[in-house]
């Protein structure tokens, strides 16, 4: 990422905040005071800052999941599906197993989540790699399937029979420790940060990372130097899905304590947008994820002190991302391997 890119992102943030400020002003409030409340809401007290951290964790993980798939030039829109299935798997292991010490139980749940998410991502990956089926299309469709599968499981075989669509609560040995009560912040945060560090190290300091990056940059060249690009793409997608699954598992083990039907509400979509505005630079992802988390949790604070509702903040976030992607002209295209890759079925290259 070049210096210009940082400046461009900063400018898009300012432009979005400025337009939002005008709207706030027209509504009859002082924009600066409103933004002040926003940042106070995101940082003040255990609840404020804790909520920001709790929102940051899944954003970071799903953004990393999307990033790793684009590294091997696959466009994994299916992180949301992996997140649901990972959450379900973690919940199942969480309440199904009892009498296991936490040292074993917590990793088991995380592994179950990662495996479920990763295996799920292998379906579109295999179709893409071996039969050239457009992965954007299949992942969008499979998201609905994943949500329906978990919705079925939570309503029928794994229902807590309590009237509301949720699984039984996971046992204490499986839950992540919460801190900064009464917020939902939990030790999943450190898992996410550790995974970020590991992933960065893996991508840039190991041969495996080199193989993945080289596959994304130029599959033909990679094949020539003895890398199997098909296998690397599958590996990249598995890691991507696994990260999504872990994000879901952490939501269950740290935030909700059980699997709730339809709990995510587009977490992975936001994560995907974080990855997109980070322009293929993994180091920017935590910064952007944190920024988005501040806006999201601060919106509640702003709502409490002014009568402005949080939709204005969602609009500002959307505007900011829109500006950021618009200036992402060149970089985005090269990251995803040219415009042909992620569009129609019948492009010229397939004829």
């Amino acid at each position, binding site marked *: 990422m070049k210096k210009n890119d940082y400046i461009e992102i900063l400018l898009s943030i300012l432009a979005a905040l400025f337009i939002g400020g005008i709207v706030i002003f027209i*509504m009859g409030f002082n924009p600066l005071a409103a933004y002040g409340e926003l940042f106070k809401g995101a940082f003040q007290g255990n609840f404020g800052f804790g909520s920001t951290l709790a929102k940051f964790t899944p954003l970071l993980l799903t953004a990393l999941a999307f990033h790793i798939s684009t590294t091997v030039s696959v*466009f994994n*829109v299916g992180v949301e599906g992996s997140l649901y299935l990972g959450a379900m798997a973690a919940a199942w292991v969480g309440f199904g197993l009892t009498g296991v010490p936490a040292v074993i139980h917590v990793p088991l749940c995380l592994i179950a989540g990662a495996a479920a998410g990763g295996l799920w991502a292998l379906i579109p990956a295999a*179709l893409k790699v071996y*039969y*050239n*089926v*457009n992965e*954007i*299309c*299949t992942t*969008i*469709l*499979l998201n*609905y*399937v994943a949500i*329906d*599968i978990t*919705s*079925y499981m939570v*309503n*029928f075989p794994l229902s807590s029979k309590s009237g509301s669509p949720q699984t039984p609560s996971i046992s204490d040995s499986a839950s992540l420790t919460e801190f900064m009560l009464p917020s939902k912040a939990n030790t999943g945060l450190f898992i996410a940060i550790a995974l970020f560090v590991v992933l960065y190290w893996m991508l840039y300091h190991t041969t495996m990372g080199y193989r993945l990056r080289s596959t994304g940059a130029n599959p033909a060249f990679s094949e020539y130097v003895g890398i199997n690009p098909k296998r690397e793409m599958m590996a990249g997608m598995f890691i991507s899905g696994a990260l999504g699954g872990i994000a879901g598992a952490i939501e269950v083990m740290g935030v909700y304590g059980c699997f709730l039907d339809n709990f995510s509400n587009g977490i992975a*979509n936001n994560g*995907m*947008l974080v990855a*997109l505005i980070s322009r293929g630079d993994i180091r920017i992802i935590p910064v952007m994820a944190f920024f988005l988390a501040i806006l999201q949790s601060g919106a509640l604070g702003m709502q409490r002190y002014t009568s402005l*509702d949080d*939709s*204005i*903040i*969602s*609009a500002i*976030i*959307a*505007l900011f*991302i*829109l500006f950021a*992607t*618009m*200036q*992402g*002209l*060149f970089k*985005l*295209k090269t990251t*995803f391997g040219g*415009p*042909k890759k*992620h*569009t*129609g*079925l*019948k*492009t*010229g290259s*397939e*004829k």
Partner: protein
Amino acid sequence: MIRNSTSILFAMLACSITQQANILNVGVEGIMLVAAFAAVATSFFTGSWVLAIFAAIIAGVLIALIIAVANIKYKADIFAVGMTVNMLALALTKFANHNILHASGSFTSQDIKPIPDVKVAALSGNAVVDSLFNQYNLMEFIGIILIFVTGYFMYKTVFGLRTRSIGMNQMAALTAGINVVKQKYVVMVISGVLGGLGGAYLSLGYTHMFTENMTNGRGFMGVAAMFFGNMNPVLGWVGCLLFGLLDSVGSQLQAYGIPSQLILMQPYIITVLILSAVLIVRKRKKTKLQSTNAGEA
């Protein structure tokens, strides 16, 4: 079934036409949502459903133009822009719902003039015929007509040929002297019109109110139906009907103890299977061809 499929139908048409020009318009969800709001607000304030449809179309075109400018002029990734516009549409309509209509959640009122149903007096004598053919909304007819109109435009006119040539090979189209940029803008505007009609149907035909996030994934189902029909409006319609059918069958089978989720996921699985089957067969043919060629050589 028809009712369920019509809102998806407009979305399908809106993204089929752009997909022909190689634009994956996932923003159709946002286009429809904003249009649905514009339709309800206009209908509420003016009391005219005709004006409401026009307002919806204008709103749809505006959103489509945002996507078009960001993608074509500023080279933003189409998928990212589409998803962002969906987010923006959700936030804006929620904001406007609170501050213009002073409603939270959903807005409904006696003053909303819905789009009328089509009643043919000659058919209303017989109760069975009446219930079968005489309860459809005007927009449902318009939707079905539009399938064939867009199909005709795409496959039988110069305009359609140019659009499809951009989708097949943009460089070749450019070399052949087609104004690719202009053509893409035109296609996006048409997509906005179609999405706008879909939004108007959703809020003034299918229901008579505006609800936050009322599109609820219908735009994406339209994208799925477009993939199902491989950009062909008529085949895409089959996909829409399949989605609509399984949706209504699903809610009825639930009464017999079959979980609706298991039925609701079928259209998506079927679409993935069909897509894969088409490409697997195509690949088989290709390798066969290559092996025979190699044999001859």
